[in-house]
């Protein structure tokens, strides 16, 4: 197993190299850490994500939504009436620009949060389950940096997913219904370029909303060694909150919980754009996300890794 010509360590350094730590420089472990500190953890997390099958299944599922909306409306005998189905659905037959919007509207209440939860809940608990968490933490990595890298990776992963929805929706919309200038909720018309910009802003708003779901799932992921437990706990909590705020008795609670603001993206389609509610929603998302991620960090930094 040990060929004679293979050294067990890197070659000895020259005599004028300074000694670091307690060891001599024969040992590679005393080398300077890799360059690009910030990108290293992110690149590694993306690498792990790209070598996981569910990554592609979720992206494929997201792409399926605009495709299904397009096909369903193309094959329908009559268009859906105003107020039927997700926001903007009734406008799709007249203008393919509404396909990505209707898709985002359809995704936001449940499927998009579910995708966010699936990715984030696996981030720590999945690694603990697989056993790779302990082999990773035997390397000189900072737990906080690792958690942050996982959060950023989950957010950027979902951003790619949203781009897939938008791009897929525009392509399907163009092919089946054609792309026309959009009519806002206020009745004014915006050009194709402005309309595309509004669709991208909607996607970014959805992403901001999903950062809360990612942080919540990451928090549960830091608490358990089972990704399924983390996923179920997050989904249950989300459903409970949704149910609670649907009762008038809990109206007082609604302003404080982030799902209340998920549909505030419609304010982008007023003329002029109602930035105030959008800004408030983004602020709430940011506060929740920061609070939940900080809590996850506080728990993870002291957590005993027994998996």
């Amino acid at each position, binding site marked *: *197993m040990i060929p004679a010509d293979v050294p067990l360590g890197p070659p000895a350094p020259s005599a004028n190299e300074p000694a670091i730590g307690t060891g001599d420089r024969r*040992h590679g472990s005393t080398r300077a850490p890799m360059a690009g500190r910030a990108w290293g953890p992110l690149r590694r997390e993306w690498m*792990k994500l790209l070598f996981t099958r569910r990554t592609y299944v979720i992206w494929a599922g997201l792409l399926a939504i605009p495709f299904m909306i397009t096909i369903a409306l193309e094959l329908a005998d009559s268009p859906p009436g105003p107020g039927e189905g997700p926001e903007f659905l009734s406008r799709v037959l007249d203008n393919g620009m509404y396909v990505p919007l209707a898709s985002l509207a359809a995704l936001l209440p449940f499927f998009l949060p579910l995708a966010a939860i699936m990715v984030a809940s696996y981030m720590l608990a999945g690694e603990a389950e697989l056993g790779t968490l302990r082999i990773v933490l035997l390397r*000189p990595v900072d737990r906080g940096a690792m958690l942050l890298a996982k959060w950023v990776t989950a957010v950027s992963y979902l951003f790619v997913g949203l781009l897939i929805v938008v791009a897929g929706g525009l392509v399907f919309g163009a092919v089946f219904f054609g792309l026309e200038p959009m009519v806002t909720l206020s009745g004014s018309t915006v050009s194709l370029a402005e309309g595309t910009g509004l669709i991208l802003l909607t996607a970014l708003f959805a992403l901001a909303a999903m950062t809360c779901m990612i942080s919540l799932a990451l928090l549960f992921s830091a608490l358990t060694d089972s990704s399924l437990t983390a996923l179920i706990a997050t989904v249950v909590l989300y459903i409970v909150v949704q149910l609670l705020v649907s009762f008038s008795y809990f109206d007082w609670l609604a302003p404080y919980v982030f799902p209340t603001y998920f549909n505030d993206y419609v304010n982008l389609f007023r003329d002029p754009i109602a930035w105030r509610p959008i800004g408030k929603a983004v602020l709430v998302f940011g506060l929740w996300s920061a609070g939940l991620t900080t809590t996850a960090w506080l728990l993870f930094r002291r957590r005993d890794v*027994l998996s």
Partner: protein
Amino acid sequence: MTEGESRGATAAAPACEGRPPILTTHGLSKEFGTLRAVDGLDMEVCKGDVFGFLGPNGAGKTTVIRLVLGLIHPTSGHAQVAGHRVPGERKAALRHVGGFVDDPTFYPLMSARRNLRLLGSMTGRVSEERIDEVLEIVGLSDRAGSRVGGFSHGMKQRLGIAQALLHAPELIVLDEPTSGLDPRGMKDVRELIRELGRAGTTVFLSSHLLHEVEQVCNRAIIIDRGRVTVQGPVSDLRPKGLAVKVLTDDQGRAAETARSAFGPGAVSEDDGYLIVKAGDDVPELVRRLVADDLDVRAVVPATDQGLEDFFLELTAPDESQERPPAKARGLARLSRRLPGGRRS
């Protein structure tokens, strides 16, 4: 007097004999709820040691390794790894350490090479040439591009050793590295550990294979119930009393004679021989046997009374303090009912 000494250990207090310690623990304790898994552990591993870490199942070996490597937090006490306090300076300490705890695990859809590249990048720059080298050392060169998900347990063990070697760390911690390997693989790994020791790398080897520790380690520690039972040079980890194998024409009478001279605990039987812990009084033993009109046919040193016997002696449950668990009591009852079962 330590527990080990009271049971006849010859091992002295830890001594690095001028070499700097690379891994020490100071009153290291860990509690899980009401269970005290590690109890005030003081241990010293010197630079250049191939250090055996022994203990029965549930003794707290893996918990100690996890504590030392910062995977879990101690209830009290701390470890000092390559001059860095753990916890607290975990990151700095781990720059000097390679290894694995329990079974090494990897990302199953990635190749062996990609796994090494990914893990290696967490410690520092790692070249493709170095990855080739460590894969060659563990005999996985021809499977470098294969997905780890398809690897056998033994191959994963080898890959675990490869990732531990990547940065040629000063201290390598291996948790039962030969587990799951075929005899050839075991031999290779032991040879590798010896090679690492000769090259000046400190190896901390946790193993339940006592002969493995005897073969490759120069110093060892035995822990039981989270406490140090004994530590010192492996050559010293022998029962204190010198034992001899005795063969006479009447082993029954010879046993009685030996018991009357050295006490009941000093006499046992093994494969037709009497094993007598006579210490320096072997001539006295022979005189008594002859005086009792016994034909002494052989008296030979019991050289196989090695680490294994010592380990069993040290880690034997203290019957005066503990009632055997229900399962063991049930087995004992069953044993008595079987034909030829012992009736005590």
